[in-house]
């Protein structure tokens, strides 16, 4: 396996990629028409104007729930590799995983007690 020679090719390709990206960006910045408008500064560039301008008040509850879901959902990802070799790990692995879960649950207890899970 001629690893390093291939890598050289790869790196040249990478440099070419970076160069191409830089070239296109630079030329579009120089040549392209510049029309600054509020829509262009929108976070989601799907081409459709926002129907209503976002007001200062939006509910943080949605964000909180989504955030908590994201965090706990990802933490659970650790359970999958554990489950595949559960038997060979034995009692030690079992206890370890419960220590991990206890740490995760302590986060949940904190969020709960802080009222992050209440909708009203």
């Amino acid at each position, binding site marked *: 396996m001629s690893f390093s020679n291939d890598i050289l090719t790869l790196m040249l390709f990478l440099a070419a990629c970076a160069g191409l990206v830089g070239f296109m960006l630079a030329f579009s910045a120089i040549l392209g028409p510049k029309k600054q408008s509020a829509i262009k500064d929108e976070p989601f560039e799907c081409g459709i104007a926002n129907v209503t301008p976002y007001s200062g008040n939006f509910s943080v509850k949605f*964000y909180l729930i989504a955030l908590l879901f*994201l965090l706990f959902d990802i*933490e659970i990802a650790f359970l999958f*590799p554990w489950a595949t070799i559960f038997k060979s790990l034995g009692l030690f692995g079992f206890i370890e995983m419960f220590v991990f879960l206890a740490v995760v649950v302590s986060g949940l207890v904190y969020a709960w007690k802080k009222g992050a899970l209440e909708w009203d």
Partner: protein
Amino acid sequence: MAIPLHHLLILGGLLFCIGLVGVLLKRNLIVMFLCIELMLNAANLTFIAFARQLSQMDGQVIVFFVMVLAAAEAAVGLALVIALYRTRQTMDADDLNLMKL
């Protein structure tokens, strides 16, 4: 047919470059954050590609850890953006000029 290692590495490198350039050029905080996530995922893809090439589990396990760290980072980062939006009503990196340069 299996995808050769090179293609994965090139894709990873491209994603990384796009993310890097995006963070430097974009001014909207959310888009900048997405670009950082892109960079992290480029690294993830590289890990996976090498792990498959080497028939190792290490690279795949690393990706799990990186995913969790990325989620924690996302949680904190978005919370900070919301806190900023509440005090300053802006999402533009160029408006962060409270402290003189």
